[in-house]
């Protein structure tokens, strides 16, 4: 077995530990620089991974098939690292609102969560799945409740804790049942034997319970209930990371389980997936309509986006999966941009009420434009990332519809359409607040630190690049999707 495959994960964890130690020696006012150091390190890792001679560049399996490096894991690992980098930037901006002097802890916890995600990306075994998910979740318990001075942060933490534990309990039990019936924990092996158990109720129950756990992570109906509260209460960088990292981790695992481990079962669940994603889309968008708190609004919208992403799963086709990943890639930058602006604009406000955005176009045209672009991209309007992603998803969906003659898919497509239109209402409501919001109480210009500018630039570049030049990313995602198949 070659442990060189997990060098990336090891180095991330090591980095986290180093940061913790560094915390002891660096004086409090300098600690935000720890973050920048971490960012640089992660940047190096990212570049190596992109250049292909990094550990995750070389494909193969380790730990007796528990751990796999393939196109899928590569793509997701890169996304995770990018997300982490942006989150660290954000945290550096946010640091003064975090518990005094404990910034470094925040950084290292972020890195541990990242490590969990990296493991999730290449887990090919239920044990690995469980451990990585728990690593992510437990770290997030802390990250969510990190603003200990703020009651809402703690409350969000507890809610996340209880419901997270509940879901993992279900998941564990599901794993137990799967293993009990099939005697396999490894996805690849399981795929071989699964067809025999296709009608064993206990096996199906097990799979469903695992899906419950994953459904919780991606905040899909009917396990979406936690999302708004946690998004609202958590410190903004955490919310961002939660909205991208752990959602993406959930999705990569979902893909692995559904299409690598039990494809024979999944094939029968088209209608289940259709219904789930349809309801998820509608729920998220409808609830968001009257919402005034921006972070909570994005919480609801992230539910809706889970629904859109599930379109790609429901399509049950390689193009669907690739569309899903494409959409996620765009989603990373878009959401990051949104939360970055929220961080910069609202960190000094008591609550994240939308009215806080009034007059933003005067206070900082850059931030105004960025948030607008983020909202437009979320709404899925050209020429931004969100549009091409939705386009691909719809295309995959209609393709399946016209191959399988399952009219449910058409209904799903129209549901998505309705969802998009509803979402336009509240996303554009945000834009309205930015450009012609009523009586802004504060018109002082917002000064933006250069690192913040840099990361905003990264986000915008990503949004436009993925929206305007899809070819490269699309090839990667197609590759990843093929990796899933075999």
């Amino acid at each position: 077995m070659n442990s060189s495959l997990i060098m990336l994960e090891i180095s991330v964890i090591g980095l986290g530990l180093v940061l913790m130690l560094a915390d002891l020696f660096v004086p409090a006012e300098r600690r935000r620089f720890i973050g920048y150091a971490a960012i640089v390190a992660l940047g190096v890792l990212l570049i190596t991974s992109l250049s292909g001679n990094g550990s995750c560049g070389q494909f193969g399996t380790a730990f007796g098939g528990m751990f796999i490096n393939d196109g899928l894991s590569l793509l997701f690992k890169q996304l995770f690292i990018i997300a982490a980098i942006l989150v660290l930037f954000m945290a550096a901006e946010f640091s003064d609102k975090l518990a005094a002097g404990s910034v470094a802890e925040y950084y290292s916890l972020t890195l541990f969560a990242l490590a969990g995600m990296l493991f999730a990306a290449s887990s090919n075994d239920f044990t690995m799945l469980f451990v990585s998910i728990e690593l992510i979740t437990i770290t997030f318990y802390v990250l969510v409740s990190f603003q200990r001075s703020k009651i809402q942060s703690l409350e969000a933490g507890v809610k996340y804790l209880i419901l997270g534990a509940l879901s993992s309990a279900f998941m564990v039990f599901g794993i137990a049942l799967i293993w009990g019936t099939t005697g396999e924990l490894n996805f690849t092996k399981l795929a071989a034997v699964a067809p025999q158990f296709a009608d064993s109720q206990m096996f199906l129950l097990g799979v469903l319970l695992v899906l419950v756990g994953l459904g919780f992570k991606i905040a899909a109906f009917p396990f979406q209930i936690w999302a708004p509260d946690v998004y609202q209460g958590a410190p903004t960088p955490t919310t961002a990371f939660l909205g991208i990292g752990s959602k993406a981790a959930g999705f990569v695992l979902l893909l692995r389980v559904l299409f690598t481990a039990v494809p024979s079962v999944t094939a029968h669940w088209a209608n289940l997936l259709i219904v789930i994603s349809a309801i998820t889309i509608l729920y998220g968008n409808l609830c968001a309509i009257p919402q005034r708190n921006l972070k909570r609004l994005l919480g609801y919208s992230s539910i809706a986006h889970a629904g859109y992403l599930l379109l790609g799963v429901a399509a049950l086709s390689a193009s669907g999966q690739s569309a899903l990943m494409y959409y996620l890639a765009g989603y990373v930058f878009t959401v990051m941009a949104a939360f970055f602006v929220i961080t910069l604009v609202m960190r000094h406000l008591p609550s994240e009420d939308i009215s806080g955005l009034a007059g933003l176009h005067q206070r900082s045209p850059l931030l105004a434009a960025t948030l607008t672009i983020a909202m437009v991209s979320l709404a899925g309007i050209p020429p931004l990332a969100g549009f091409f992603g939705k386009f691909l998803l719809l295309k995959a969906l209609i393709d399946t519809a016209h191959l399988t003659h399952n009219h449910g898919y058409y209904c799903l497509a129209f549901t998505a359409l309705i969802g998009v239109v509803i979402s336009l209402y509240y996303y554009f409501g945000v834009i309205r607040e930015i450009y012609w919001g009523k009586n802004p109480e504060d018109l002082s210009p917002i000064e933006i630190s250069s690192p913040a500018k840099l990361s905003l630039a990264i986000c915008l570049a990503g949004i436009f690049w993925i929206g305007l030049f899809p070819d490269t990313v699309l090839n990667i995602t197609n590759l990843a999707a093929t990796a899933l198949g075999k």
Partner: protein
Amino acid sequence: MKYENLPWLILFLPLLSVAVITLFTLRSKTVSSLISIGAVVTGFVMTLLFINANGFQFSGETSANWLSIGGLQIDFGLKLDALSMMMLLVVTGVGGAIHIYSFGYMHDDESMARFFAFLSLFTFSMLGIVLANNFLMMFIFWELVGVSSYLLIGFWFEKPSAGDAAKKAFVTNRLGDFGFLFGILMVWGLLGSLSFSALQTTLAANPALLGASATLAGLLIFCGAMGKSAQFPLHVWLPDAMEGPTPVSALIHAATMVAAGVYMLCRTLFLFNSESLHLISYIGGFTALLAALMAVQQNDIKRIIAYSTLSQLGYMVMTVGLNGPTPAMFHLTTHAFFKALLFLSAGSVIVGMHHEQDIWQMGNLRKKMPITFLTFTIGTLALCGVPPFSGFYSKDAILTQALAQKSYLLFGVGVFVAALTTFYTFRLFFIVFFGKEKSKAASHAHESPLVMTLPLIALAVFSFAGGFIGITNNYGSQFVNHHEALSMAQQFTEPFNNLFPMACGLGAVAVGLFLAYSLYNNAAADPLPTKLGGLATLMKNKFYFDEFYEATFIRAHDFLAAVADWLDRWILEGAIIGAIRGGTDLSGRALRLAQTGNLQTYAFLFVLGVALLLYFVLGK
């Protein structure tokens, strides 16, 4: 044909003058008016040149393709034959006179340049109608005539009444045009062409082509004439159109525009079958009678003349309907002369009276304005048809035609209307020029300047001699296959060949004259209302047509508009869209009630979700 380009010049000079005036010379009254006058007078000269180069019997076309889309071939072409050339003369000649007259009449109006631009625009459109060689082109200029009359009637747009009159004229004409275009489409659909000559040959080859819809098509086309020539039931706009400046009334509402309808009927006569012609003739006769009756009780000098125009147009249409295009065009031409003359004289009177138009404020003007008095008299005699004035010949031709067609009812109507005409004209004549001054203005009236009286004299000459200078020959050569040209002497005595209609005509004149004299010589007030009672008020109020249309057509459209608007506002916008909006919003507010914020509920919903999932998959 010789001078092939002349007609194009004749047509486009006025347009050019419009362009020049609007673009450059709006500032200067004189230059603009001279440009416009120059355009039309040059046109007149060119027409003369062209005619004596080609002669009246000549007939030809010159055209260029304007639009060609598959089966739709539309030429921009000029048709030149006796009919159009004669009309060219009338339009440019009478028009020229009126242009010159207006130079004096409008002299102290600060937007005179605009006036002349409009006048040229009108001339252009009218010439277009006259020269058009196909239906669509005729329709195009038809519309342009409509709009230029709209502009001219509404020239004094600050006056609300002027604005309203313009609007009314436009919309009423539009109603006619609706039928016209409808008919054009129908004809095109059946015969596949729009060019008059092509249609004529096609129909001559195979008369059955129009088939069952022949009558309908004919009547629809007639609708156009109904609008422009103000035939019943679309006659209501013409009297109001008198809001425009008097030269306009003379040019548009006496000489040219209103004649367009009749001209168009003669131009497309080959399309009409006997049924449609029959109906047309009765509409014409009825209009003639109706208008004459209305005229009897009007007191506005211009309106009286306007109503007489209506009834004369009725004559013409009736004659066309009686399959007599030659007399119709004959009367059209002479009418153009003497009616323009009357209007312009009336204008001169109005100027002399300082824009007083009520005849009961005038009186004894023959002393104050001798020239005007003279020309007016000539006009009156011509209108009434006193020999040897032009009107006598044309009206006699009409009556003869009616008799020849054995349509005795219409003949009777014709004679009766002749009597009425004489009556109301001389009523006007006596009240205005005889008796004693009925107001200060009348006693201070003065003669108009030369620039105005000269055109009067010119027109007077034609009104006198128009009857026997060979107009009928020219038209006859157009319509009657083997038409033998008459010498001037023959024409002079022509009516006396068959005495009965002439006798009736003259008798009618005599009766009318006698009545008018006995009632209105030195009358201070109108004795008629007391004599006629209800009928008089009916006449005075134009038989309540305006009120009737107001109550039906306008009201109906406004009602439908109100309904549509209501539907749009309350059902579509309010109910349906509102329901969708509100429904979505409400369902959102309802759904989020699930987010109680209570952990227990969350856990419960979570478990419920699991149960749901399991049931959905395993339960079945």
